[in-house]
């Protein structure tokens, strides 16, 4: 129920903010966003109110809990995803991608070192050999690399 409230509230805030910003635009520019956004904001407010009421009435429930299964924390997974993306942004797809795969497999998902090293090698092949050399796509080099140039 708390998750339901959080999602509903997030969408309401986002939608409401976009509608508020849209009102500052010239008429022809704000027409369609307001036609879509105003009713949607009302619906989102209705949904949020309903979710809050249900949360106040009933016990919390988790929509996807599998009884008896071991669960890794969600926050940890998103933290690792953020770290993965940060590494790629910092040092690029080729180097950052390979290092990120290595670290994720070894320290997040608890694979053995040989598996993690092999994974990093495959990631390098995919990024550099397939995407850059064979397909000719220039992948992002990373903010740090670009700053050093």
């Amino acid at each position, binding site marked *: 129920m708390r998750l339901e409230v959080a999602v509903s509230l997030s969408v309401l805030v986002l*939608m409401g903010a976009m509608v508020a910003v849209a009102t500052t635009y010239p008429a022809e520019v704000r027409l369609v966003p307001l036609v879509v956004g105003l009713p*949607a904001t009302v619906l*989102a407010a209705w949904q949020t109110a309903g979710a809050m009421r249900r949360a106040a009435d009933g016990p919390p429930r988790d929509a996807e809990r599998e009884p008896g299964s071991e*669960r890794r924390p969600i926050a940890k997974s998103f933290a690792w995803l953020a770290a993965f993306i940060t590494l790629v942004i910092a040092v690029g*797809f080729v180097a950052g991608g390979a290092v990120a795969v290595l670290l994720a497999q070894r320290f997040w998902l608890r694979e053995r070192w040989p598996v993690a090293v092999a*994974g990093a090698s495959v990631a390098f092949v995919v990024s550099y050999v397939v*995407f850059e050399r064979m397909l000719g796509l220039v992948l992002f080099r990373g903010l740090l690399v670009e700053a050093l140039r």
Partner: protein
Amino acid sequence: MTTGPVLGSLLGLLSDPLLIALMLAAIPLGMAFGAIPGLGGKLALVLAIPFVFGMDPIPGAVFLVAMHGVVHTGGAIPSILLGIPGSGPDAATVCDGHPLALRGEAGRALGASLAASAAGGVIGAVFLAVLIPIVQPVALAFGPAEFFFLAVLGITFIGAVSGDNLLKGLIVGSLGLMLSFVGTEPLAGIARFTMGVTFLQDGVGVITAVLAIFTIPETIALTTSGGGHVPHRPGTTGTASLLRGVADVWTHRWLTLRSSLIGSGIGLVPGLGGDVGSWTAYGHAVVTSRSPERFGKGAIEGVIAPDAANNSKEGGALLPTLFFGIPGSSGMVVLLGAFVVLGIQPGPAMLRDQPGLVWTLIWTLVVSNVLAALVFLVLGRWLVKAIQVRVGVLVPFVILLTLLGVQAAGQSWHALVVLFALGLLGYGFKRADWPRAPFAIGIVLGPLMEISLHQSLAIWGPSFILRPGALVLQAAIAATIAVAIRRARRPHKGSNDAA
């Protein structure tokens, strides 16, 4: 029209070892470009142009059409197995294809995908052949007014794909529409919802949004479920499982036919784009299903409909490209350029002056789609085994491919931040049981709807709603809404799991 050039072209195609070899080389290339997220048929054509330069027109055109015609056959593979769409039009396959794979029916989903793709490609080629005599008035009948109502028709499917969560579906669909408005407003050139961030002036990319809403949540869910492997059922990954999926296409043959015609019709209209075809076909499958509550959870029709439409679209798109020189899609823009390089001059005189070439290209679509299905059938069981690895090995590569897909789609590194933010939202939707397909429909159709509305008002004023094509589409919209209302009032049947 005599049968001479029709049958003669087929015989010429099948009896020429060079043409057969070129098709056999083009098919795996096209499927590979479709399967690697973010690449797609357009890039495949761009990279192939230097290789066909200097070829005779027919071999070069056969190679290009065969390669481009099977891109979406390959694109369904990562959509089903990994939840990563190969390109925008493949995103609709993720909705039900990936849930099928997660509950151990990857083989069946792949089998249905390959058969539907093959059927769609063949039907698209037949559509192209049948429409040749009447092509001009049909293709040119669509204008901004019809585009607008076609977009609205697609948006009404938001209600259909929302299942029991109509309120949430409408909200999510509206959110997708609102996010499609982020960027530089197309008519006035004013930046909207960019918060002063230069990168956002190009908008939130469809690929980025779809990957964030579908792929990221599924990937995170894999890591948090505690299981060591992607689930699979013994005996559901061999050839028998693939053939079961093929049989499903025959079981749902009328849906396959309708979806193929939807894809062909949408491909025929320049400027609509492949995303519209696959989502319209998906929405149609939901609306016409007797148990729509299964969609989004692994309904096999949710794989059949968009995949048939994706491949049939190519036949439809070839029509304005060949006979008017008007590209039917962004991929056709590149194909048109390639034809000119080969010395082929598209235009109305093509059928009169080069009937053999025209029919050879039509037969190429047919033969290449059938051959691609056979290739897929042979490789399918090994593709399914590819996801039976440990979650710890699979997940980092899924994440890397997702990021590469965003990059390959032409987005800057800032899009990776947007991917993460929307991925958080998408995971929230998944955990709180909010439907996510409406979001994709909204973000795909939003720009078309807005531009068409402004153009229609500028050309005809409010009377654009009275154009004949617009009236037909308004009737279709009303029928869709009526079906949704009648269904909502009907007592619910028990959930009928497709397995």
